[in-house]
C-alpha cells in the first residue's frame, strides 16, 4: 500500500517503443518528495556528459508530487524537467490545471521519456497503461486544435491533454508545453525537447484510486488550510478576483513594472490595469484542480478589433511581457496575443523579451528596423503580433529570435549583448530588480537561470510590513525593497522552501513564498497526513536544501560558476529612469558581498560557487547513481 504517491514511474523509449513501469524507490520519496525534486534527481542521474538538449538521449521527465490530486489547496501542479535548449543547463517548468492530477489517477508519479520517434507520435495513458499512438494528423495543429482533436478521437471531453504547438514542433528554444488550452509549463524550452522527440502530446485519463494515510485527519488538515487561505490571507480577495494581474497595482505604486524593455516603469493602469480587466473582459472566475484561490479567469472580448476572442488567464507575467514591456498598453490586443502564445505554444515571458529587446536595439541604433523591413516603434501592436507568428514558424527575423533573446542579440550585433536583461541565458521577468534589492539575488542564483519562482524575494514586490515578515520568515526586512540586509538569509529560506513546495505538488502561489499562510509547518502537516511518514518543519528545509544543492551540482557540472551568478550589466550600471524608484540600481559591491554571504550560508565554495563536499555529505547527496 502506498499513500500520497502512486508509487510508480514509467520509462518510455520512443526510439524503440520500449515501455517499462517501475516502482518509485521509497528512499527517493523521503529524500526528494516528488515532482520537481525527483525530476531533478532523475535528470541528474541520467544526463550524460555532452548530450545536447535536443539530442534524443536528453531525458524529458514529467512528475507530480505526493500532494498532487489530493485535497491540498492547489494540488493541480506538475513539473517537466530536461536539459534546457535555451540555457544549456537545468530546464524545469511547472504548470497547473488538471493534467497533473489526471496523470496520478492514471497511475503514475513520473514519466521519463527518452529517444526519438521516427514519425510524430503521442502518448495515450489510461489507468496504468501507456500506448504510443500515431500523431500524423495532429502534427502542425496548434495546441487548442490538437487538444480538441484528441478529445474528439476518443469522444471524451474530460480527457486531459498536454501538448506542444507549432513552436515546439519547430524547436523554438523557448517553446512550452500547454495543457487544457491555457495552462503552460512555460519556461526553459521544454516544448522544444518534446518536439525534438517527435512527441506531440500526452493524453491522460485516470480512474485509479489515490489513497492517503490518514483520511479523516487529512480532511481536517486540508480544511484548515483551505480556511487559512480563504479567511486569513490578506491578498486572497485581490488574487481571487483579479489573479496575478492584481500585481500591476503594487507594481505601479512601488515602481517595478518593466515598461519599454526596462526603459521606464510608468504604467497606464487605466488602460491595462486589473480594474479594467474585471470591468470589461472578465466573465467568470476559474480555478485549477483543487484550488480555492481561483487566480484564473475566463475572459472574452466583446467589441473592437479582437471581438470574439476568449481565453483563460490572464497572468501578470504574460500580460506585462507581451504588453507594456513591448510598449503595448492596449488590454484587448494583449489578451489576444496571450491566446496566440498559448495556441502556438510559446513562452510568453521569453517571447515578450525577444520582441522588446529588438525594439530597444532599434531605438539605440544597434539595428535598423527599415533594413529589417519592420516598424519597431514601441507599442506597435501589428509588429508584435507579426513577430509572434514569425518566431513560432521561424520566418524571417523570427528564425534569429527563436534562439532566445541573448543568442539572437549576439547574432544581430555582438556589441549589443550587454543590452539584454538575462542571467544564464534566461530572460528577465517583468519585475525590475533595480527596484527590489533582494530580488536581484534570487534571480541570479536560481538554478534554471533568471527566474522568479525559486528564491525571488516576493515580499518586496508587495512591500510586506516588518511584523508580518518577521512572523512568516523570521526576518524583518523581507518586505523592504530598498535594503540588502537579510536578503541573503531570506533568499536561502525561500530557495529551500520553494524547492520543497514544488516537489510536494502544491501550488507555490498558496505558500509562504508569496506571504500566503501555508508555510513549512503547514506543508509538513499535509505531507505527514498524506503519506504516513512523519515530516517536520526541519525536514521541509532539509529536503528543499537537498533539491537545491543537487540542482546546483547539476548546473556547476555543466559549467556554471560564480561569475554567472550576477545581475545583468544594465541592472548594475543604468539607474531606473523614472517613477517612484527613479535613480535606483543594484550596487555592485553590496551585491557582491550579499552573494558571498549567500554562498557561505549555502555551504558553497565562495570562489567557484560549487557546493562543498561537506555540504553534499551533510545532505546525503550521492554522486550520480547508476540507473541500470
Amino acid at each position, binding site marked *: 500500500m502506498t499513500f500520497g504517491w502512486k508509487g510508480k514511474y514509467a520509462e518510455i523509449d520512443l526510439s524503440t517503443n520500449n515501455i517499462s513501469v517501475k516502482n518509485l524507490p521509497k528512499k527517493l520519496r523521503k529524500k526528494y518528495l516528488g515532482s520537481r525534486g525527483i525530476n531533478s534527481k532523475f535528470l541528474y542521474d541520467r544526463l550524460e556528459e555532452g548530450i545536447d538538449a535536443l539530442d534524443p538521449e536528453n531525458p524529458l521527465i514529467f512528475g507530480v508530487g505526493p500532494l498532487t490530486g489530493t485535497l491540498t489547496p492547489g494540488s493541480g501542479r506538475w513539473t517537466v524537467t530536461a536539459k534546457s535548449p535555451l540555457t544549456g543547463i537545468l530546464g524545469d517548468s511547472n504548470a497547473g490545471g488538471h493534467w497533473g492530477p489526471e496523470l496520478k489517477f492514471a497511475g503514475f508519479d513520473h514519466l521519463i521519456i527518452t529517444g526519438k520517434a521516427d514519425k510524430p507520435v503521442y502518448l495515450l495513458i489510461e489507468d496504468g497503461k501507456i500506448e504510443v499512438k500515431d500523431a500524423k494528423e495532429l502534427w502542425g495543429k496548434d495546441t487548442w486544435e490538437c487538444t480538441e482533436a484528441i478529445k474528439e478521437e476518443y469522444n471524451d471531453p474530460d480527457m486531459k491533454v498536454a501538448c506542444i504547438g507549432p513552436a515546439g514542433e519547430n524547436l523554438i528554444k523557448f517553446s512550452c508545453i500547454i495543457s487544457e488550452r491555457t495552462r503552460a509549463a512555460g519556461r526553459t524550452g521544454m516544448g522544444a525537447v518534446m518536439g525534438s522527440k517527435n512527441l506531440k502530446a500526452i493524453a491522460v485519463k485516470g480512474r485509479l484510486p489515490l489513497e492517503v494515510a490518514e483520511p479523516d485527519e487529512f480532511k481536517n488538515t486540508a480544511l484548515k488550510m483551505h480556511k487559512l487561505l480563504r479567511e486569513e490571507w490578506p491578498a486572497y480577495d485581490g488574487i481571487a478576483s483579479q489573479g496575478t494581474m492584481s500585481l500591476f497595482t503594487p507594481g505601479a505604486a512601488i515602481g517595478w513594472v518593466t515598461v519599454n524593455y526596462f526603459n521606464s516603469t510608468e504604467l497606464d493602469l487605466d488602460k491595462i490595469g486589473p480594474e479594467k480587466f474585471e470591468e470589461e473582459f472578465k466573465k*467568470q472566475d*476559474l*480555478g485549477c484542480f483543487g484550488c480555492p484561490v481561483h487566480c484564473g479567469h475566463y475572459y472574452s472580448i466583446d467589441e473592437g478589433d479582437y471581438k470574439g476572442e476568449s481565453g483563460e488567464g490572464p497572468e501578470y507575467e504574460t500580460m506585462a511581457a507581451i504588453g507594456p514591456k513591448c510598449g503595448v498598453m492596449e488590454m484587448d490586443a494583449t489578451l489576444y496575443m496571450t491566446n496566440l502564445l498559448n495556441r502556438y505554444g510559446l513562452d510568453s515571458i521569453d517571447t515578450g523579451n525577444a520582441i522588446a529587446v529588438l525594439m530597444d536595439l532599434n531605438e539605440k541604433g544597434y539595428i535598423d528596423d527599415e533594413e529589417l523591413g519592420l516598424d519597431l516603434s514601441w507599442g506597435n501592436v501589428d509588429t508584435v503580433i507579426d513577430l509572434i507568428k514569425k518566431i513560432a514558424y521561424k520566418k524571417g527575423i523570427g528564425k534569429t529570435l527563436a534562439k532566445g533573446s541573448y543568442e539572437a542579440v549576439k547574432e544581430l550585433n555582438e556589441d549589443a549583448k550587454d543590452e539584454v536583461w538575462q542571467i544564464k541565458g534566461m530572460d528577465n521577468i517583468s519585475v525590475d530588480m533595480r527596484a527590489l534589492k533582494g530580488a536581484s539575488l534570487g534571480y541570479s542564483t536560481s538554478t534554471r537561470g533568471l527566474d522568479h519562482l525559486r528564491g525571488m524575494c516576493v515580499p518586496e514586490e508587495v512591500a510586506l510590513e516588518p511584523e508580518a515578515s518577521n512572523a512568516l520568515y523570521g526576518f524583518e526586512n523581507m518586505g523592504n525593497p530598498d535594503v540588502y540586509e537579510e536578503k541573503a538569509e531570506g533568499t536561502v529560506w525561500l530557495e529551500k522552501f520553494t524547492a520543497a513546495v514544488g516537489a510536494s505538488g502544491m501550488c507555490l502561489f498558496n505558500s509562504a513564498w508569496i506571504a500566503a499562510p501555508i508555510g513549512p509547518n503547514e506543508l509538513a502537516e499535509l505531507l505527514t497526513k498524506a503519506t504516513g511518514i512523519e515530516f517536520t518543519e526541519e525536514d521541509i528545509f532539509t529536503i528543499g536544501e537537498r533539491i537545491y544543492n543537487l540542482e546546483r551540482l547539476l548546473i556547476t557540472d555543466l559549467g556554471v560558476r560564480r561569475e554567472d551568478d550576477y545581475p545583468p550589466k544594465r541592472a548594475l550600471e543604468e539607474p531606473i529612469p523614472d517613477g517612484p524608484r527613479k535613480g535606483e540600481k543594484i550596487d555592485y559591491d553590496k551585491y557582491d558581498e550579499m552573494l558571498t554571504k549567500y554562498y557561505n550560508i549555502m555551504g558553497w565554495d565562495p570562489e567557484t560557487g560549487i557546493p562543498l563536499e561537506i555540504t553534499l555529505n551533510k545532505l546525503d547527496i550521492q554522486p550520480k547513481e547508476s540507473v541500470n
Partner: protein
Amino acid sequence: MVEKIIYADPEKCTGCRICEMACTLEQDGFFAPYNSRISIVKEEEQGINIPIVCQQCTDAPCAEVCPLNLYDRNPETGALEIRDEACIGCKACILACPYGANLTHVESKVSIKCDLCGGDPTCVEFCPTDALQYVRVDEVDKLLKRSMFNKMSNALKEMRKIKRGEK
C-alpha cells in the same frame, strides 16, 4: 422537518473540483473524482463548469425503477439513500435519473448517489465560492429569485447611468 438539498450555482463554480475530492474522501476514504457523487462538468473552451448532484427528488425515478427496492428516504435528513451493499449493478437508476447524478462506483461496480453526508455535506463545507449551498428545499426558489434580482438590478443600474448621462 423541512428537507434540505445541495443547491449548485454554475455562475459561482470555478471548476476546481474540490467538491469531487471532498466527496470521495468522505464517502470512500480515498481520492477518486471519477466516483464523486457530485460532478463538475467542464467546458474549457467556454469557461463553463456545471455541478451535477442529486436533487433528492420528491417522487424519485431512481427509487421507482430499482428492481430490488433498495432506495429509502432518510427520516433525519430527507436524503434518498441506496442500500448499495445489496445493489446488483443493473444501472436502471442511473438511466432513470433526470440529472445524470447517480453513477456506478468504479471499484465496487454498484450504484451510488449523494446521501448528503448524513446532513452535513462535505462538498459544501469545502466549496470556496459558495457555488454549493445546503439549503431548505422551499428556499431554493428564493436563491434563484435573488440571482435573477442581481442580474436585473445590474441592468437597471446601467440604464440609470445612461439616463443620467454618465455613459
